[in-house]
C-alpha cells in the first residue's frame, strides 16, 4: 500500500523567487523521514511539492521530477486532485472544518469525493478514529462539532480525516508545534503505528522529535536570507544525530548555529 517517493532535480519557485533548489532524495515506503533545518530553509515548501499543494499558493511553480512508485507527479496529464488522494497531508495548526461534526470531518474526504453507504462510512470513520487513537475519546460525541475538541484532539481528528481516504503517503507539516507535550507524545506514538501502513514524511523543528520518530532524517539549510534552500544531506537518523558527514549538520544539531 505504501509507496516510494523518488525526487530528482526539484526546484520550487514563488513567482520568480527560487525557494528550494535542486533537491534529489528517495523516501522509502513504510518508513518515517524527518525534515529538519532552520526556518525559511524550504522544508515546508518542499513538503508541499510532494502532493502538489505548492502550486495552490499564488505564484507557486515547480520544476523537476517527483516519482511516486515510478509515476511522475509533475508529468503531463497528471491530475493534481488525484495526486492529493494518494498523498495526504496534516498541517501545522489543527484545521477541522468548523461547520462539520466529528463524524462529518472524518467522512469529509470520502463524502466530498463520491457516494458511500452509511454502514460503509460508519465503518471507515470508526477505523480511522481508532487509527488516530481518538476513538475512545470521541465515540460518544461523534455528532458534536469538531472544533469543540481540544487542540491535541483536533490534530488527531485531522490525522483521522487524512487517513480515512487511505492515502499511500502521509505528509506532516510540523504537526506537533501547536500542541503540549502530552498531545505531542500521543501523536508521536501514532506516527510509530501509522508507519506500518503509510510512508510518512514529517517536518519538525524539534530535533528530539526527529530523533525519536524517524528512520531517516534530511537536513536542509540556506546560505543566507534570500538564497534558495538546499538539501545538505539525508541519512539514517542515527547517523545524522551521531556522526553526520557534513559539518553544517553537526553544527545545527548540536546547537552551535541556527
Amino acid at each position: 500500500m505504501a509507496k516510494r517517493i523518488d525526487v530528482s532535480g526539484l526546484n520550487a519557485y514563488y513567482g520568480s523567487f527560487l525557494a528550494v533548489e535542486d533537491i534529489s532524495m528517495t523516501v522509502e515506503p513504510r518508513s518515517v523521514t524527518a525534515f529538519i533545518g532552520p526556518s525559511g530553509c524550504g522544508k515546508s515548501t518542499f513538503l508541499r511539492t510532494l502532493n502538489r499543494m505548492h502550486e495552490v499558493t499564488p505564484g507557486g511553480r515547480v520544476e523537476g521530477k517527483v516519482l511516486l512508485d515510478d509515476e511522475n507527479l509533475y508529468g503531463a496529464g497528471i491530475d493534481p486532485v488525484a495526486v492529493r488522494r494518494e498523498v495526504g497531508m496534516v498541517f501545522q495548526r489543527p484545521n477541522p472544518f468548523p461547520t462539520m461534526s466529528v463524524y462529518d470531518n472524518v467522512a469529509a474526504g470520502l463524502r466530498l469525493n463520491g457516494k458511500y453507504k452509511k454502514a460503509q462510512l460508519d465503518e471507515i470513520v470508526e477505523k480511522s478514529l481508532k487509527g488516530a487513537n481518538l476513538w475512545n475519546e470521541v465515540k460518544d460525541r461523534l455528532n458534536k462539532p469538531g472544533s469543540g475538541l481540544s487542540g491535541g484532539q483536533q490534530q488527531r481528528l485531522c490525522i483521522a480525516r487524512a487517513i480515512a481516504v487511505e492515502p499511500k503517503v502521509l505528509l506532516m507539516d510540523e504537526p506537533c508545534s501547536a500542541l503540549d507535550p502530552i498531545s505531542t507524545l500521543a501523536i508521536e506514538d501514532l506516527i510509530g503505528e501509522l508507519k506500518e501502513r503509510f510512508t510518512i514524511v514529517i517536518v519538525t523543528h524539534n530535533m528530539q522529535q526527529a530523533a525519536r520518530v524517524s528512520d531517516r532524517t534530511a537536513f536542509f539549510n540556506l546560505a543566507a536570507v534570500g538564497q534558495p534552500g538546499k538539501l545538505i544531506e539525508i541519512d539514517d537518523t542515527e547517523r545524522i544525530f551521531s556522526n553526520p558527514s557534513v559539518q553544517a549538520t553537526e553544527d545545527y544539531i548540536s546547537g552551535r548555529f541556527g
Partner: protein
Amino acid sequence: MSNATLSDKRPSSLKGATLPKWFAWAVAAGSVALGLGISAAAGLDSSIQWALIAAALFVIGSYGISARVEGRRQAKDRIATSLIWVAFLLAVIPLASLIYETIKRGVKVLDGYFLSHSMGVVSDTEPGGGIYHALLGTLEQVGIATVISVPIGVLTAIYLVEYGRGKLSRAITFFVDVMTGIPSIVAGLFILSLWIVILGMGYSGFAGSMALSILMLPVVVRSTEEMLKLVPNELREASLALGVPKWRTILKVVLPTSIGGITTGVMLAVARITGETAPLLLLVWVTNFINSNPFKDPQGSLPVYIYLQFANSGGLGPAYDRAWAAALVLIAFIMILNLVARGIARWKAPKTGR
C-alpha cells in the same frame, strides 16, 4: 543602572485616586439640569439647544473634574468615553424619533382591512382602502430583483475571491465599486431607455425589478466577497489536501462556512432596495388596482404608494393617514428582514461546541 539617577515621577503605589462609579451619571444629571437652566434663563425654547449645551457641559465637566482628581490620563479616557456616548446619542435620536413618529401616526388606520384591500374604488380623499396592491407589487418586484442579483452577485464574488487573478478581476472590482455609486434614478433611466424606449416594452413590475437588481448587485458582490475572504485559507488547503476538487471545496467547505454572513449581506441588500422609489416611478408606474402579474402592466409598490398618498393629501385627511400607515408597514418589513437575517446568521454560524 543609569536610570537610578533620573528622578522617578511614578507614584510609589499602583493605586491612584479614582472617582466613584456614579460620577458619570452625576455629571450627566448636573449638566442636563444646568443646560435646562441656562436655556430657560436665556429664553431659548428649542430642545436641541439645551441638549447641545448639556452635552458640551458634560464633556467639559467630566474632563475638568477627572483631571483634577484622577490625573490627565484618566481624564482623557473619560473625555473619549463621553464623546463616544454623545455621538451615539446623536445617532440614535433621529432613529428613535423616526420610529416613534411613524408608529404614532401609522397605527391609526393600520389593520387587517388595510393590509388586505386595494385602493381600487377609493378616491384619495375618501377614508378606507388599503395597501394590498402595493404590498403585493413590492414583494414581487423585490423578490424578482433578488432572484436576478443574488446568483450573479454570489458567483461574481466567488470568482473574485477564489479564482480571479490579474486584469479581469481588477476590472470587475473597479466596475462593482462604480456600480455601488450609481444613483437609483440613473439605474431607472437606463432600464427605461433600454427596455421601454428601445425595446418598446410597456410598464411592468419586471422592468422595475431589473433596475432594482442593478442597485442590489454591487452590494451583494461586496458583502459576499468580504465574507468569503474571512474563511481561513487553512480550511481550503485541508480540503484540497484530501483530494477534493476546487469546485467541491468551494461548494462544500467555503460556502457553508460563510453562509451566515452571505445571508446577512443579501438581506441587507434587499432592505436597501425595498425603499427605492425613483426607478419604480419611472418603470412600474402606478395603479390603484391589484395586478398580480409582474410581467405585464403597471403595478403598485409601497414607496410609490407612500409618495402619492402623501402628495395628494395636502398634509391631512385619510390619504395622509394611509401614507403613514404604509410607511410603518415598509419599516416593519425591513426590520423583520433584518431580524430574519440575524437569526439565520446565528443559526448557521460555525459552532464552537463548548
